[in-house]
């Protein structure tokens, strides 16, 4: 009786739980591996402004392995439920993982050890996997017109994905052919599109659904999502374009537009938080606060190299705050909440009592992760600015300890879910 409502009665859009979880487990594994690589190759971290080696490999284990992997796992489950349209055949999603996960490992190995064949093969697999993801998301969004906050950001993410993939492939080929006049500028544009474009837009877009849902706050008005998408889109074009053509003031303008978008985004989120039914925020939200604090800080840090400050240490600090500060904090926060949430959704499949979120989520590992992750952010930022080795090493150890704690959390959530399901199966068989 309402526009498009015939589709709304469509059947179950829940995927088998093993499908999103394979992405989440891989993300947690690559997160751990990235910190190991950073610690092993810590001598190359200070003064890093690009080039093959452990640092670049670790960076891509975080960006491709943890951030994008989590985004894929979350999107394949959340997008069809939110948009009420199927994402695509399950085999395509499985194929995406089969191509992408080994691609990330191969690419990182190639970067760490300067194996050109591994870089090329890994990058190709990653790009094919990401293209499949972009295609599935694009097809899903094509006929959605009632979630502008989510869809506009998702479209910007898809557009950024195309740009970052092209630039990424060019950069990889340049490692062996050396044809680019300015490898660093192309790498910076690639970082803008990957960090603020692809991952940033997915994070912001999904925030409009996930944050109000997790805190039980009011829906964010569509106007907020439209405004942040407009400002972000313009900021991305100017930011990445300015870096590519070597006009710093253009990039700085892009960063300022990004800051304006961030202010609108955070004000929308805070307005929803004010109306929330859950007066006490859950543990995962502490990491969301860290992420939200560091998003504008990363944009301010981006202004420095754009306006001519030396790349060492300011470009390195900017990338660290963007990837580890804003994105990794936000993604691990969402992962921390979404893993038990999906488990609880699936836990009543046999008709029994659903597993409680509070029973599925152990608190100690996430407390340790929060402490270690925050310590790592502070220590490594200080080390990068001052060029100090010991704060860096301590920060890397803290980061690794946090990643281990997060791994323990993941294993424990899955163990508790399986144990609940085993009990449910036994009860079901007994009638």
């Amino acid at each position, binding site marked *: *009786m*309402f*526009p*498009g*409502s*015939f589709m*709304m*009665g*469509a*059947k*179950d*859009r*829940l995927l088998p739980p093993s499908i999103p979880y394979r992405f989440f487990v891989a993300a947690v594994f690559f997160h751990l591996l990235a910190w190991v690589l950073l610690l092993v190759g810590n001598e190359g971290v200070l003064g890093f402004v690009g080039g093959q080696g452990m640092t670049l490999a670790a960076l891509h284990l975080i960006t491709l392995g943890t951030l994008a992997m989590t985004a894929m796992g979350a999107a394949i489950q959340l997008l069809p*439920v*939110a948009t*009420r349209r199927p994402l695509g055949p399950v085999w395509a999603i499985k194929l995406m993982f089969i191509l992408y996960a080994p691609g990330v490992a191969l690419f990182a190995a190639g970067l760490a050890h300067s194996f050109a064949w591994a870089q090329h093969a890994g990058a190709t697999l990653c790009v094919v996997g990401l293209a499949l993801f972009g295609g599935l998301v694009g097809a899903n969004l094509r006929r959605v017109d*009632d979630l502008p906050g989510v869809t506009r950001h998702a479209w910007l993410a898809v557009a950024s994905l195309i740009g970052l993939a092209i630039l990424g492939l060019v950069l990889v080929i340049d490692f062996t052919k050396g044809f680019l006049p300015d490898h660093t500028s192309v790498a910076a544009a690639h970082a803008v599109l990957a960090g603020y474009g692809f991952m940033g837009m997915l994070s912001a877009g999904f925030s409009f*659904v996930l944050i*109000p*849902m997790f805190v*039980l*706050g*009011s*829906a964010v008005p*569509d106007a907020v999502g439209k405004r942040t998408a407009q400002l972000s889109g313009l900021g991305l074009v100017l930011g990445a374009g300015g870096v590519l053509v070597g006009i710093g003031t253009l990039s700085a303008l892009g960063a300022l537009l990004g800051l304006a978008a961030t202010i609108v985004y955070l004000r929308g989120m805070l307005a929803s938080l004010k109306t929330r*039914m859950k007066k006490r925020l859950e543990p995962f939200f502490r990491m969301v606060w860290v992420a939200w604090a560091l998003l504008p800080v990363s944009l301010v840090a981006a202004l420095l190299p754009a306006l001519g400050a030396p790349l060492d240490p300011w470009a390195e600090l900017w990338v660290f705050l963007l990837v580890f500060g804003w994105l990794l904090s936000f993604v691990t926060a969402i992962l921390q909440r979404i893993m038990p*949430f999906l488990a*609880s*959704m699936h836990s*009543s499949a046999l008709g029994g*009592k*659903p*597993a*409680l*979120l*509070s029973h599925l989520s152990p608190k100690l590992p996430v407390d340790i992760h929060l402490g270690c992750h925050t310590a790592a952010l502070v220590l490594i930022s200080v080390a990068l600015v001052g060029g100090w080795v010991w704060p860096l090493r301590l920060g890397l150890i803290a980061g690794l300890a946090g990643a281990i704690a997060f791994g323990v959390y993941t294993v424990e959530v899955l163990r508790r879910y399986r144990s609940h399901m085993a009990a449910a199966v036994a009860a079901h068989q007994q009638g």
Partner: protein
Amino acid sequence: MAGDVASAGINEAGGPPEWLSLALDAPPLDVRSLLAQGVDPFATVMEAASGIEFGGSLVIDAPFNPSPLRRILAGRGFSSYGRKLGEGHWRVFFHLDGGADWESGADVEVSPEGAMSWREEDGLHIDVRKLAPPNPMLAILRLIESAGPGETVVVHHEREPHFLAPELAERGWRIARVSSEVVNVRLWLERVI
């Protein structure tokens, strides 16, 4: 037709609005057969509504209380008054008068999220269709917190709300039953014993 309404169980208490006498003579547009065929009758209803002049009336026969339609038409200036004539048969009278008092005389409550709730023999009903996420979840959770002991909450939704189940479980509630019809997925929520 007046007899039909008068003899039916009144679902919107407080007496009919004054304009109802003007609407009783309007021939009802029965959309039940369309819905039974899986056809969304929204366009048909809106076309009929567009032909109504100020002071005119439109009557719709539907298999359920079409609360979202009432909200939409209220936005276009229609007051409405609905009654359940029998199982699976609601008659809703619309009167184009500015829609200022479209909820007057009804025992329907509207939550801060815009969901309509009312009481029937089988429990407390809430209609959350056409609300932007996560407002359906908020409205449902708010309602179950005010539900009496042993009371069933019947949710009228446009889809199966997967994200609701974990939050219900945390509050000691569960989805006891689901029935899916065109544009009306109904869920019966009960406390876990």
